[in-house]
């Protein structure tokens, strides 16, 4: 065995003397590598999309062009389902799930699957964004590199974060956004051990993008002069974008439900949903081509203030984009919510600008591009409920540091207002509902980590159901516990429990010693726990019945007791250990 480990020493860098004392340096180095890899993945996605667009452009003019998004989405679904056999999900929630549950373990196939399916869906005209696919890919790349080097869970989570940060930094050319988004949404823990490697990965990812694409803003904006009135108007805009966020979230959910119902009703093959959804998007796209794809072109125009259509038309566009996004993502298309958020956000900013312009034409409002920009911030913060991500994303993709004050305002207000209606963000809603959203050092996290196996106390004295009370009294003398499990002496099955409190009065009555058998005084309908039960459920049952301890019984065999007193002990040390790094 030693022979192999010397050969493979490079696969176990955590054993190198250099990294033994502190793994920070190791994480930084691996983080940089992962950042570069995921940056390359992001660039590949970008190039793929570009190629798809150019190729598709030839066919846009035909009447049957509305079928294109349908076909693209259906092929993407078939690709994911049949060729890669990857259960399709949204992407980011899966990354968070694996980070939360399994220390960021992800499958190798995830590292490229979403890029291809995303290219197919978005390139053919589906209304979705390339960000979630690259984040997922980056995270999976990070996870697999971490697996290759046999890192532990804590290190792997940091490296998964590096992957997602690098990918996001590269696709937007926005290193801070990559860092902030990862910390805020994916990792959920602000600690120096995480931030440093993730920051390095962000830099690496952004650098890859700049080397290959040149350093430019995604949507370059003008310089805006923001007055006090505009800042005040921003509060209104924030509420408006929050409303749009809520609308989009609900539209997505409902369209998902409807499509599920329909496909169940007609028992259609799985690719039917994305196909129909895509075709519907294509139909909308025939009338309003701006809703197709990730919508960056329209955003560019709006931010520069070159979007000429009037209030009504822009409102319709905004609603159409929301519908198209809901049809694409809710009906099983593959892609992210980021870019649609930006598009809808700038539409809603524009709508709001047109509206206040209509109300107060005399007031010298700032250029509409500024509002488009603020709208984007409002919608991203609202949808992701990650205000910092919203702020930094907009600053970095537009270079509009001049509008930072209203930007912060809009982001903060929008995420707060949305939170009132939709308590969990779009990404995390499902996880929260299933109780998988466990952030480090929280009650849920600690309880999820501890298992019944670790808490069970095995120093109980077992008594038998045909034992006389007198013999039992002798056992009580020697025991320091209040609970006694009763077993059948022949089969070894667990039959009940005796609690000292219940029988104390009889215990001092020697007349009963020879006449009463334990079978007659034990509790038979005892709440029991299985070794594999989840601790939160166990605690809930304890609370419901006012119990302080419960017997652990597997397959009718008594294993031990689990009690709240030990739990506190273990809970505390678990919490402290979790806070060490």
């Amino acid at each position, binding site marked *: *065995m030693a022979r192999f*480990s010397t050969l493979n020493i490079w696969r176990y860098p*955590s*054993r190198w003397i250099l990294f*033994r*004392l502190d793994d920070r340096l190791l994480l930084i180095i691996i983080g940089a590598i992962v950042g570069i890899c995921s940056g390359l993945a992001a660039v590949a996605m970008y190039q793929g999309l570009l190629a798809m667009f150019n190729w598709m452009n030839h066919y846009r003019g035909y009447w049957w062009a509305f079928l294109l998004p349908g076909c693209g989405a259906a092929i993407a679904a078939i690709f994911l389902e049949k060729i890669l056999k990857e259960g399709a999900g949204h992407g980011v929630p899966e990354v968070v799930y694996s980070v939360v549950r399994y*220390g960021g373990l992800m499958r190798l196939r995830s590292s490229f699957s979403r890029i291809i399916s995303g290219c197919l869906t978005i390139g053919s005209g589906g209304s979705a964004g390339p960000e979630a696919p690259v984040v997922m890919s980056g995270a999976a790349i990070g996870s697999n590199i971490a697996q290759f080097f046999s*890192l*532990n*869970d*804590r*290190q792997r989570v940091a490296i998964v974060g590096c992957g997602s940060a690098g990918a996001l930094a590269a696709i937007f050319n926005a290193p801070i956004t990559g860092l902030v988004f990862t910390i805020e949404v994916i990792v959920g823990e602000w600690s120096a051990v995480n931030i440093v490697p993730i920051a390095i990965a962000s830099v690496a990812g952004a650098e890859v993008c700049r080397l290959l694409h040149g350093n430019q803003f995604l949507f370059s904006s003008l310089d805006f002069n923001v007055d006090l009135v505009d800042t005040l108007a921003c509060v209104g805009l924030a509420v408006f974008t929050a409303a749009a966020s809520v609308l989009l979230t609900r539209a997505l959910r409902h369209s998902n439900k409807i499509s599920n119902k329909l496909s169940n009703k007609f028992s259609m093959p799985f690719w039917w949903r994305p196909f129909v959804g895509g075709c519907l998007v294509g139909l909308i796209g025939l009338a309003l081509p701006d809703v197709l794809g990730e919508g960056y072109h329209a955003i560019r125009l709006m931010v520069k203030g070159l979007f000429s259509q009037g209030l009504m038309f822009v409102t319709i566009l905004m609603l159409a984009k929301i519908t198209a996004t809901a049809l694409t993502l809710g009906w099983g298309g593959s892609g992210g919510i980021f870019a649609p958020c930006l598009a809808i956000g700038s539409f809603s900013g524009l709508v709001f600008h047109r509206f206040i312009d209509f109300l107060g034409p005399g007031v010298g409002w700032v250029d509409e591009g500024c509002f488009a920009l603020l709208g984007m911030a409002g919608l991203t913060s609202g949808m992701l409920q990650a205000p910092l991500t919203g702020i930094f994303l907009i600053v970095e993709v537009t270079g509009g540091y001049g509008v930072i004050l209203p930007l912060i305002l809009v982001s903060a207000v929008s995420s707060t207002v949305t939170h009132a209606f939709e308590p969990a963000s779009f990404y995390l809603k499902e996880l929260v509902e299933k109780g998988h959203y466990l952030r480090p050092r929280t009650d849920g996290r600690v309880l999820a*980590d*501890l*298992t019944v*196996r*670790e808490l069970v106390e095995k120093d109980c004295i077992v008594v038998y159901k045909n034992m006389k009370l007198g013999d039992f009294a002798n056992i009580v003398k020697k025991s320091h516990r209040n609970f006694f499990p009763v077993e059948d002496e022949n089969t070894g099955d667990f039959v009940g429990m005796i609690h000292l409190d219940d029988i104390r009065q009889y215990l001092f009555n020697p007349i009963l010693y020879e006449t009463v058998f334990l079978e007659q005084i034990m509790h038979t309908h005892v709440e029991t726990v299985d070794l594999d039960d989840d601790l939160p459920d166990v605690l809930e049952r304890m609370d419901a019945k006012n119990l302080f301890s419960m017997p652990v019984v597997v397959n009718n065999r008594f294993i031990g007791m689990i009690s709240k007193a030990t739990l506190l002990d*273990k809970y*505390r*040390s678990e919490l*402290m*250990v*979790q806070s*060490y*790094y």
Partner: protein
Amino acid sequence: MQLDLETFAKCLDIPETTVERWIRQGRIPVRKKGNKCEFSQTLIEKWAETNHLKFVVPGTEKETEDTGQDQALDELQSVMRRGGVFYDIKGESVGDVLWSAVNKAPFFDKPEEKKKLYESLAAREEMMSTGIGKGVAIPHPRTPMAEAEEPAFITTCFLKSPIDYGSIDRKPVFVLFLMVSTSAKLHLHLLAQLSFCLRDEEFLQLLKQYPNPEELYGKIAEISERIES
């Protein structure tokens, strides 16, 4: 330093499954190589300290540090041997015999110590007589003499003439078991054993014959064995 997982978990006094999970999650500065845990001892000790845990390698001095608590309780017989048996204790009143008994007690050599013990015994008698009937009394201090560094003892004193001790059954007392113990737990333990003996009719008969020490200890040992079984 290398230990296997089982020993390592024992060093921390934490279940093996927990340690394993902590290693997997990277919460503890330990690397796993197969079944072995590899770690630096200083690092793990520092880690354990910050997390209010103890890391004790088996076989080192630290291990035996605070195990004193669970010592086996002294046997009645050995405790009585320590105290000794005395005959013909003189005295007309409870106070007199107590003072005489205190003078026979071992370990309490200095006058002020004797005085203190006597006062404590007297205070206990004032609360309620320790004469438990059948001519026997078990005087003991009101609180265990916690400061006493000496081990517990029971001094058996046969009185020259039985006196009225205010016992429950009003019978005159002819024998005192002066009992000084170091802890409440030990006190209860000794008291329980002694009263078990006193319930034995044979033992009472023996006492009435003013037996010599070895006879007395022999009987005690015999009865103690019965309790054990």
